[in-house]
């Protein structure tokens, strides 16, 4: 199970590596990728045109989906009696890992480590503030997820529900128009929260 999680959680990094090495693919590998592209809606053979945007989107979406998987552990247990509780921290840390990349891309590359400028962005732009707020919560959770600290900070970890709401809004605001697929993603997140309210 752990191997599956490792594999799944690192897929976005494998994907990024494939995209950024597109120019150097040997012919046989390229042929395989072209074949896959013919059947699946995925791009494999093209270097990202807007690399910073590509990595920001990929890390953000990966963090969002891994957080969704992490949050599905409890509903799986209460509705379907499948117990994956022992993997929850592991998954959560992977979600945080991508959130960290996402935040670092913004602070280090987009804002060029200008902390004053970053602070200005957080203060003046709700879109950035929501994202940073969610990141702060995930950071707190990651730091207090050790065997020693978790019992003391257990209550604080409930903040993740608030982080999910912030992330949902941040996600919607990251696009110029709201499409059906965006609504679906937010629907999944809100559903995961709602399932906790409905049944104990």
């Amino acid at each position: 199970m752990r191997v599956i999680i490792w594999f799944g959680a690192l897929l976005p990094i494998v994907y990024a590596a494939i995209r950024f090495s597109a120019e150097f693919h040997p012919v046989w590998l390229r042929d395989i990728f072209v074949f896959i592209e013919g059947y699946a809606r995925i791009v494999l053979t093209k270097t990202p045109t807007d690399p910073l945007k590509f990595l920001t989107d990929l890390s953000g979406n990966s963090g969002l989906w891994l957080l969704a998987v992490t949050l599905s552990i409890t509903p799986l247990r209460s509705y379907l009696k499948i117990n994956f509780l022992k993997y929850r921290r592991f998954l959560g840390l992977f979600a945080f890992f991508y959130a960290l990349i996402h935040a670092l891309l913004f602070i280090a590359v987009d804002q060029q480590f200008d902390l004053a400028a970053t602070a200005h962005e957080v203060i003046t732009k709700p879109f950035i503030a929501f994202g940073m707020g969610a990141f702060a919560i995930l950071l707190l959770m990651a730091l207090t997820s050790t065997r020693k600290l978790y019992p003391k900070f257990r209550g604080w970890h409930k903040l993740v529900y608030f982080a999910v709401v912030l992330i949902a809004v941040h996600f919607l605001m990251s696009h110029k128009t709201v499409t059906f697929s965006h609504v679906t993603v937010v629907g999944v997140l809100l559903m995961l929260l709602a399932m906790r309210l409905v049944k104990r």
Partner: protein
Amino acid sequence: MLRRNNYGLIPSSEITSESLYQERRAFMKLGASAALMGSVPLMAALDFEKSKRGLEPTPFDQITTYNNFYEYGTDKESPAKLSKNLKIRPWTLTIGGEVQKSLTLDIDTLIKKIPLEERIYRFRCVEGWAMVVPWVGFTLASLLKQAGLTSKSKYVEFETLFDPVQFPQQSKSFGNIPFPYREGLRIDEAMHPLTILAVGLYGKELLPQNGAPIRLVVPWKYGFKSIKSIVNITLKEHQTRSTWNQIAPQEYGFYANVNPSVDHPRWSQSRERVLGKFFKQETLAFNGYGNEVAHLYKNMDLKKYY
């Protein structure tokens, strides 16, 4: 004959030989029939001297595969994939409204008659990415003069083709912008020598994803002003419609001049991501065309009229 103009600060090292111009011009004329036959072998024959310094054009592949054309979808890749069969011939462009003489022009006749020139311009999207495009076209002013302006010609409105059969997203009721796409300029902006109607890029006819067969290019404004696949140009007495401005006026102004000191409500506009580059560069006021156009906005508060 193709004339090269210095707008866009093209270094002399980039100026191409006369014979290549002739060749290219001939190609522009041939392009129409090639497009009709659905073959594009001629296009590969022409190549541009790459700039050694100054403005370096973004690679053709990036300009033609990273597009905003919401008629095909809200993502950047759909336009190149879905637009291959856009019927760009025959194509009629009308110029009407407050003009002395309304015109209905066939695109081929227009291209044959009007002198084309190349303009290497910076292109800055409101989303924060940027590129450099070697357009081929002619000044909007030269066309508007043919229709003749009147004292009531104060704004110009442009409209993209409305054809839900060809533009799949135009029949969507949710998740996209209202169609037909419209944009507008003030008459002095429209008559400015930097404002062109482009019919080609990299010496070739425009591909559909880039707004074939004819599109507006206003280099000192955010890209959404540079409307694609135009069918109607209407001169008006009052400020015109502008699609993004109508959807979200607090985010997209009517003027939409590139301005690093006025942020979009969700992101800063002070820097930009050049396509193909990982690190951002500074965005220039009026996208670097301040010397030519700043006077148009002399007495305006650009924080208010963004």
